[in-house]
């Protein structure tokens, strides 16, 4: 299939960017979106031009590095799919595809389609961990976790931190990311000692960089792991309890 690509090109952080148009002929529908970009980049290198910078690593939908805005949709048109797992059969011959980096104040552009998502790391550093005593591992069966709870925590833990939720959100809010990172710890027994403190800290860092939630639901639609909006409600509930009931005083680590 023959495609026309309109790609955001930007030499570096803070510099002027622009959309550039490329003809990409002879694309197989079995290629992934990233392989299609590889084909274009190969040609650009041969022609002595600067290849398009985009972030990628595992190419199997679990590392979260390959996010880009494809025709106005985060990770493109297929639901529950990261860009690397999006295949060209989702497009048709002659299509024009617009590719842009994530856009949010909290995600400054590094180059072309690569953005700096270290604000996510800051949210994690604020409380996305549990403090455990080092030493011999305790007997695993001592801490029982109901199946339903383990499943829900696993649903939240699926978040790969790609940033599609922020990219798709009209407010550039990071509620779905933060709530997923909170829920997979706050639901489990191991996460309880720091639960209230963690919620206050991670929300605090989130609000320094990101917008607020107006319950559009775009984040869930964009999420390659289809993380549920329910986690946002759980975060709002835990934050309310942590502040109003002041439980962090009882639950200090």
């Amino acid at each position: 299939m023959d495609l026309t690509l309109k790609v955001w090109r930007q030499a570096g952080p803070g510099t002027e960017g622009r959309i550039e148009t490329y003809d990409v002929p002879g694309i197989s529908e079995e290629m992934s979106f990233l392989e299609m970009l590889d084909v274009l980049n190969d040609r650009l290198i041969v022609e002595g031009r600067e290849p398009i910078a985009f972030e990628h690593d595992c190419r199997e939908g679990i590392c979260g590095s390959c996010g880009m805005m494809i025709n106005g949709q985060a990770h493109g048109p297929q639901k529950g799919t990261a860009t690397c797992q999006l295949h060209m059969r989702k497009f048709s011959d002659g299509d024009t595809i617009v590719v842009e980096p994530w856009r949010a104040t909290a995600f400054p552009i590094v180059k072309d389609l690569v953005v700096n998502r270290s604000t996510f790391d800051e949210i994690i550093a604020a409380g996305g961990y549990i403090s455990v005593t080092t030493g011999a591992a305790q007997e695993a069966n001592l801490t029982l976790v109901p199946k339903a709870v383990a499943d829900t925590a696993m649903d939240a833990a699926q978040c790969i931190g790609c940033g599609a939720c922020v990219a798709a959100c009209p407010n550039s809010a990071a509620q779905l990311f933060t709530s997923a990172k909170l829920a997979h710890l706050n639901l489990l027994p191991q996460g309880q000692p720091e639960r209230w403190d963690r919620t206050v800290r991670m929300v605090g860092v989130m609000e320094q960089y990101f917008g607020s939630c107006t319950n559009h639901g775009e984040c869930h639609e964009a999420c390659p792991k289809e993380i549920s909006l329910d986690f946002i409600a759980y975060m709002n509930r835990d934050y309310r309890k942590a502040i109003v009931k002041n439980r962090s005083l009882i639950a200090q680590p």
Partner: protein
Amino acid sequence: MATTTRPAAAELATTKRKRPWFIELYGTALGKKYVMAITGIIGMLFIVGHMVGNLKLYLGGDHLDVYGEWLRTIGEPALPRTVFLWLLRGLLITAVVLHIHAAWSLTRLNHRADIKYTNRRDFIAANFASRTMRWTGILVGLFIVFHLADLTWGAANGDFIRGAVRHNMVHSFRRPPVAITYVVANVALGIHLWHGAWSLFQSMGWNNPRFNQWRSWFAWAFAGAIVLGNISFPILIVTHAVTY
């Protein structure tokens, strides 16, 4: 990792001493969302009461005027006349002011956080109601000012008689432009309520998979009932189905 938590915890303790916890909470975006939800609930309760009260128009006679007079006398003889009414008005004014301030400051936060795409976002879940909350909100706010001028202060109503609720209402809504204004404003209110009545559950963290479907049913039912009830007054009066 354990050592990193200590200085931050100390910081939290010192900021807590400076301002009361609810002021601190209002300083956060999540806190403002709780305020949006709670003041929204106060507004919703008022809207239901307001509409149910107005339905007395259809009982005919002086039912509506008697009801209007009763509102002034609630709490008597424990409270002097209109004291309870003014307390209620105070609560409503506070709620409206907080709702607007929180919305304004959250909107500013969101505009700071968001950068526009060259190629517009293709919205999938966001609907007309959720994306126009601030505009329907402004519309309803302006309408409330007109509505007060029309039927509370009487300034926008040529033949206003204080206390003659039914007479004022019929006289006002007989003017077609006014009737149209009321219908349009109440449709805007309905759109605002439809998103708000669902959204508030998420903001407050009231989420239970067993009842989540009920939240959108509730939003439909609530917004629908309010719009139908409220637009029936101007429509039935402007068509002379309801007279003095």
